[in-house]
């Protein structure tokens, strides 16, 4: 919980993403899926990246592991991954400069950075047993022999709450329910105790009661292993439950960044405010009509000039928002916002 946790110290920095640009050159034109994104992930903290479809949240996460689908590629920016060794030393690697298939990248992916995908059905192999898939990770990255891998794999399955772990270790993934498969994914991602876990919509395909199980599990495992978590979601409810820090993305840019309490209780960017107004709440003490954001997310080939949110914004400054894409301004209360209304605050 953010209130109880101290603010992040520089020693705990795991990942710094700076001015990241990812482009997809297509026949119809270039899609700037990620257009200048900055954020940090710290040990033992959860960063939630939230936004609507097409805002570039998944592509940002994929680029950290060099897993962006073709023809997308990182055209600019740095992804500095800090590896802390046992005696306090720190090695910094720029993941953006590594090739996807390079030895260095492969030794980090799955070993130091684990990933959980949205669809447990499509990201697990149906023709290999749970055990095959989990022991492969252990043997490859930790150089363990088959028996050790089996023992560790079963331990990990037990740790993520899979009933009868020894039996289910030899099961095929189609024999498991959706929630169980997502637990297997989490077990695979965490079996090498990575420093950073990237979870892309880990609960979106699940029912609410299963979602509650998986969220509790992720919180427990973070408390045990102390890993940094980067959680990508479109669900503001999940953000409120899980996040320490929040990045709100819109059209490939970070509209607003800040700690979770400020984002929900003192949002600054007009997009963040509009998003929060448009979610149906379970409370009964509000108007029956929902606020909505007018218009729709523009298509990626026709990005508006100036501020990307300008055409849908209710607080447009005439003559300026159409022309200038605002940089990120630091806020006195922490975090940053890309909106000209906060220009008087110092530039970050």
């Amino acid at each position, binding site marked *: 919980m953010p209130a109880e946790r101290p603010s992040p110290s520089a020693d705990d920095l795991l990942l710094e993403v700076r001015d990241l640009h990812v482009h997809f050159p297509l026949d119809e034109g270039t899609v700037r899926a990620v257009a200048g994104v900055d954020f940090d992930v710290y040990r033992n903290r959860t960063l939630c990246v939230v936004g609507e479809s097409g805002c570039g949240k998944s592509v940002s996460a994929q680029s950290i592991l060099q897993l962006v689908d073709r023809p997308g590629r990182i055209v600019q920016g740095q992804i500095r991954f800090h590896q802390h060794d046992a005696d306090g030393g720190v090695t910094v690697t720029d993941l953006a400069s590594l090739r996807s298939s390079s030895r260095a990248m492969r030794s980090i992916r799955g070993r130091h950075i684990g990933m959980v995908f949205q669809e447990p059905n499509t990201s697990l192999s149906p023709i290999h047993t749970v055990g095959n898939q989990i022991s492969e990770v252990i043997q490859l990255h930790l150089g363990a022999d088959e028996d050790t891998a089996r023992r560790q794999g079963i331990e990990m399955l037990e740790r993520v709450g899979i009933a009868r772990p020894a039996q289910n270790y030899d099961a095929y993934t189609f024999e498991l329910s959706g929630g169980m498969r997502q637990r297997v994914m989490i077990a695979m991602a965490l079996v090498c105790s990575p420093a950073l876990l990237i979870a892309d919509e880990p609960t979106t395909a699940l*029912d609410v009661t299963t979602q509650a199980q998986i969220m509790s599990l992720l919180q427990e495992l973070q408390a045990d292993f102390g890993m940094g978590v980067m959680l990508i979601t479109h669900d503001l409810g999940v953000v*409120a439950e899980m996040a320490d820090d929040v990045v709100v993305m819109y059209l490939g840019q970070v509209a607003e960044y800040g700690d979770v309490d400020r984002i929900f209780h003192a949002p600054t960017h007009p997009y963040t405010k509009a998003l929060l107004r448009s979610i149906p709440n379970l409370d009964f003490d509000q108007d029956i009509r*929902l606020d909505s954001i007018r218009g729709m997310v523009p298509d990626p080939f026709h990005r508006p000039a100036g501020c990307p949110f300008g055409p849908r914004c209710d607080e447009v400054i005439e003559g300026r928002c159409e022309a200038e894409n605002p940089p990120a301004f630091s806020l006195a209360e922490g975090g940053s916002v890309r909106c000209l209304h906060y220009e008087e605050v110092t530039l970050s």
Partner: protein
Amino acid sequence: MSGTNGTLLSVRNLSMFFPVRGGFLQGHRGEVRAVDDVSFDIQVGETLGLVGESGCGKTTTGRCILRVVAPTAGELWYHPREGEPVDLARLDTAGLLPWRQEIRMIFQDPFASLNPRLPVLEIVGECLKVNRGLRGSALEDRVAELLGLVGLRPEYMRRYPHAFSGGERQRIGIARALALNPRLVVADEAVSALDVSVRSQTLNLLQDLQNEMQLTYLFISHDLSVVRYVCNRVAVMYVGKLVELADTRSLFLTPQHPYTEALLSSVPKPDPRIRSQRIVLEGDVPDPAQPPSGCHFHPRCRYAVDRCAEETPPLRETAGGHHVACHLADEIELAGIQG
């Protein structure tokens, strides 16, 4: 939005079992009890929510009402504007024809439910051609009117679905459902595939249309926060059974079934200051081919007593309009949503 001007549809003891076949000669091995003895009424002009987790039978219930499938047992008494109620469950295809115009559907996936090879004019206009015999400019006028109704520009009728975003496609689906002036619209997860900002627009549109056209909705959804917004009454299903039915306010504030309580507590609240006291249910939703004995929820219920494993609790009325299927409904205090 409320108004009880009588009953539109009475569902009585509805059951839908799907056979499970296997082995040599594909013999009958058992059955999946997708919907098991479900009864409820839909009132004229209301929005009735039908909620539950995947596999609970909510979609199958909707499909039975639309008679996409023929129910295994039970009655579906539809009350027409004039004349005697008819039992939709007993009618054959020809007999259903007039009622099919009055009960329409909005589908979940706006990408799969529109034929990519037809322009909007054909998609929305087809039922008008078949049922109303509209042609040429009369057809175009009506389609233009419908598109205007759902907030799309009439010029778009020559375009194909690929030219539209998810939210716009869903509006096309809504226009198609409303083309024949239906009375009952079954909306199966109609906003689940949409982004937050578009979802709220679509929900507002559905409410406006309900007021304008005196529609009745059966709103099938897994998303309780949306259901709380649009529904007058809510029915909760678990493994094919109706476990609770009440008006929205009392269901959310004072749930009486332990499953409803757990479901409500699982919804993440969009406020980091009230990180919820989640009731985390153990295990998974049981397989509807082999449901547990007695109350289907008892293996995961934290209040269960011995009786729950033996007797199936009937759905009974506890307070005005509040129905619950739980042996312990009078004895346990459950927490709802504070508000």
